[in-house]
């Protein structure tokens, strides 16, 4: 027997919260079905013994009908190892999971106490495996609020395994859970395999449920939370409220970001940090190449700090604050349901809105989230939409920096162009690939009020990711740019690409550089344009090319890993071609009009 413990349960019951609490790691948590899309593993220190805890994506049964269920079954039976299993974090972080060849030491089965009956079928299936099982009766705070009472002793008596009530978000019950787990992995748990012999059937589920479940208040009035949950799910007033929510989200992202940038970060860097750096560099170096590389036009001690930390970081903060709120409230699946009919027309289910929204933060989690989508066709459509015209938040920050001062209409036009292109691409692919329309069957989670502490933590995590995976490559990019510019290499590069950049796109020759850097990071196609005096038309062309242009290296790597090299190369080709084609056309049309 090996030392792994599996976290198993229906989707959205709180497995990942428990995983994070027990291991101290930070896998994604959100209030909708299918947040966890890969396996995450972490060490858990029990009294005198260390075990590996594995967070398994939520499944409804063990019938091996979808990828997640197959993985769960393989892990349970200890036959896993055929697949590339890894944890999917944000922006490409991942942990390889070592191959498991033995069956696990114990199972931690997580139940949503407010959804006991539906949870029991999978539990009975798990009990068939005759492994030590511990049941966490989670979200018991929410169940209590609804007036549901689950009797842990009765349930434990019926199932023959320990049942421990928990509230994962506050940590309630987790110590007891750990203590019981410790007994289990040491083989000191009294396990009663009586249930394993019986056939798994809904009648038995109903029987156990009746013995363990009671209702406190006979006819409780719906809570305010539930009433709002319903309102947001109905077309009236749900649809107008959806429009309002989206507008409000955009407002918060842009407003909060602009405020942070204008009143906090820019004054801080320009007023305090940069003068100091400039003085220090002037003292230490002679005027010349080195000094120019450090603090000249592309001086990487100046731009290399200003771009990532003063221009982009504010939007990373404001975007993830808004996104985390939407994720944890349970609003995203509601939006998906309201929009499902419209999304059907472009070959998608409404739930496709979730990866698309994630894509406005970073394309990598968006691509990973497509794993939960029903069909390969839907996956392809979403990935193409995201790669071609969904700017990541860093690039959006760059657009705002480039365009908000000089011309708001151009900024709106760029985003509008992106949406039109996305719809056009989806319509085209939907025509191209014939298949039955997708059929939605989706559980709508309860609306929850996100906890401020959890939101702050989520935003902080994403900021940390951004600094490691976004800001540092950006500094390197700026460094390369400074070097190319100051050594004159930029000019000769501009000369080589002149026909494309100058004649076709109508941009200055030095705009060849952002095109090269853009492969490294998306926002680098846009930010260098800040330093060039561009006309309105040039701004629009430059921004449009930047929008459609290739996704960054990390995205290409993720695409290769998830869908193979052909998909990655296809996207590279498609995005490059569309960027130059559309950029050139806009330039031609624009010159005619203006």
């Amino acid at each position, binding site marked *: 027997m090996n030392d792994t413990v599996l976290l198993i349960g229906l989707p959205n019951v709180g497995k990942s919260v428990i995983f994070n609490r027990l291991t101290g790691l930070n896998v994604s948590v959100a209030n909708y079905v299918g947040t966890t899309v890969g396996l995450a593993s972490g060490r858990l220190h029990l009294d005198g013994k260390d075990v590996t805890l594995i967070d398994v994506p939520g499944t409804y049964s063990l019938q091996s009908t979808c990828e997640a269920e197959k993985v769960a079954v393989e892990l349970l039976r200890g036959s896993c190892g055929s697949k590339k299993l890894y944890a999917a974090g944000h922006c490409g972080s991942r942990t390889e999971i070592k191959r498991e060849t033995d069956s696990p030491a114990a199972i931690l089965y997580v139940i949503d106490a407010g959804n006991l009956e539906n949870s029991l079928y999978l539990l009975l299936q798990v009990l068939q495996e005759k492994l030590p099982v511990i049941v966490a009766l989670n979200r018991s705070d929410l169940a209590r609020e609804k007036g549901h009472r689950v009797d842990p002793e009765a349930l434990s008596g019926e199932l023959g395994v320990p049942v421990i009530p928990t509230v994962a978000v506050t940590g309630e019950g987790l110590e007891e859970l750990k203590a019981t787990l410790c007994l289990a992995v040491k083989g000191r748990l009294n396990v009663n395999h009586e249930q394993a012999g019986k056939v798994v059937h809904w009648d038995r589920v109903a029987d156990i449920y009746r013995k363990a479940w009671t209702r406190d208040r006979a006819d409780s009035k719906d809570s305010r939370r539930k009433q709002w949950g319903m309102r947001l*799910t109905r*077309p009236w007033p749900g649809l107008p409220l959806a429009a309002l929510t989206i507008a409000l989200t955009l407002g918060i992202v842009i407003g909060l970001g602009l405020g942070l940038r204008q009143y906090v970060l820019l004054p801080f860097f320009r007023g305090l940090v940069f003068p100091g750096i400039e003085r220090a560099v002037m003292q230490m170096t002679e005027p010349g190449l080195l000094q120019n590389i450090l603090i000249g036009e592309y001086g990487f001690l100046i731009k290399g700090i200003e771009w990532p930390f003063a221009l982009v970081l504010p939007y990373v903060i404001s975007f993830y604050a808004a996104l985390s709120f939407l994720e944890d409230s349970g609003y995203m699946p509601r939006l998906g349901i309201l929009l*499902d009919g419209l999304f059907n027309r472009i070959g998608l289910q409404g739930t496709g809105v979730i990866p698309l929204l994630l894509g406005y933060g970073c394309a990598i989690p968006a691509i990973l989230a497509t794993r939960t989508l029903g069909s390969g066709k839907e996956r392809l459509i979403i990935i193409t939409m995201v790669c071609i015209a969904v700017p990541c938040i860093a690039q959006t920050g760059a657009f705002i920096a480039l365009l908000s001062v000089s011309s708001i209409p151009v900024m709106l036009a760029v985003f509008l162009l992106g949406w039109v292109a996305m719809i056009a691409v989806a319509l085209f692919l939907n025509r191209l690939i014939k298949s039955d329309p997708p059929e939605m069957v989706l559980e709508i989670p309860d609306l929850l009020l996100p906890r401020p502490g959890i939101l702050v933590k989520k935003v902080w995590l994403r900021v940390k990711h951004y600094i490691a995976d976004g800001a540092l490559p950006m500094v390197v990019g700026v460094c390369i740019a400074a070097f190319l510019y100051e050594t004159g290499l930029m000019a000769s590069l501009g000369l080589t690409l002149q026909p494309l950049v100058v004649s076709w796109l109508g941009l200055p020759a030095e705009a060849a550089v952002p095109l090269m850097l853009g492969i490294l990071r998306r926002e680098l196609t846009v930010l260098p344009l800040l330093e060039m005096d561009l006309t309105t038309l040039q701004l629009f062309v430059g921004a449009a090319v930047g929008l459609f242009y290739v996704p960054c290296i990390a995205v290409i790597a993720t695409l290769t890993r998830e869908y193979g090299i052909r998909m990655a190369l296809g996207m590279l080709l498609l995005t490059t071609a569309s960027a130059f084609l559309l950029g050139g056309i806009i330039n031609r049309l624009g010159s005619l009009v203006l």
Partner: protein
Amino acid sequence: MSVKNTIPEKQNMKPEMSCLVENCSSCEVSLESLCLHDQAWITELPESLLLPFLGLRPGKSVSLVARQRFNGPLVVEVDGRCVAISRRVAGNIRVAKASPGRSAANSNE
């Protein structure tokens, strides 16, 4: 057991759609043809890998919470939880107005 409202809400009704009417307690219809706020009991489900796990099982009481625009899914409430079901799938779920005796325990929502 009283059903809150069986009056069709015009905004969401196609004209030819028949509601489950009060005086037809033994009729079986598809879930798709319920009116908003109608309550009914599931009698028959299509072969489905997901529906039973979301609480849609024979004998369960369901009520129609919403009918989405643009030919989008229906939203039904089962045991106090909401599930969205596309119209085609809902069209294959049969429901009856009368409670089957054995599920009395499930219906006091």
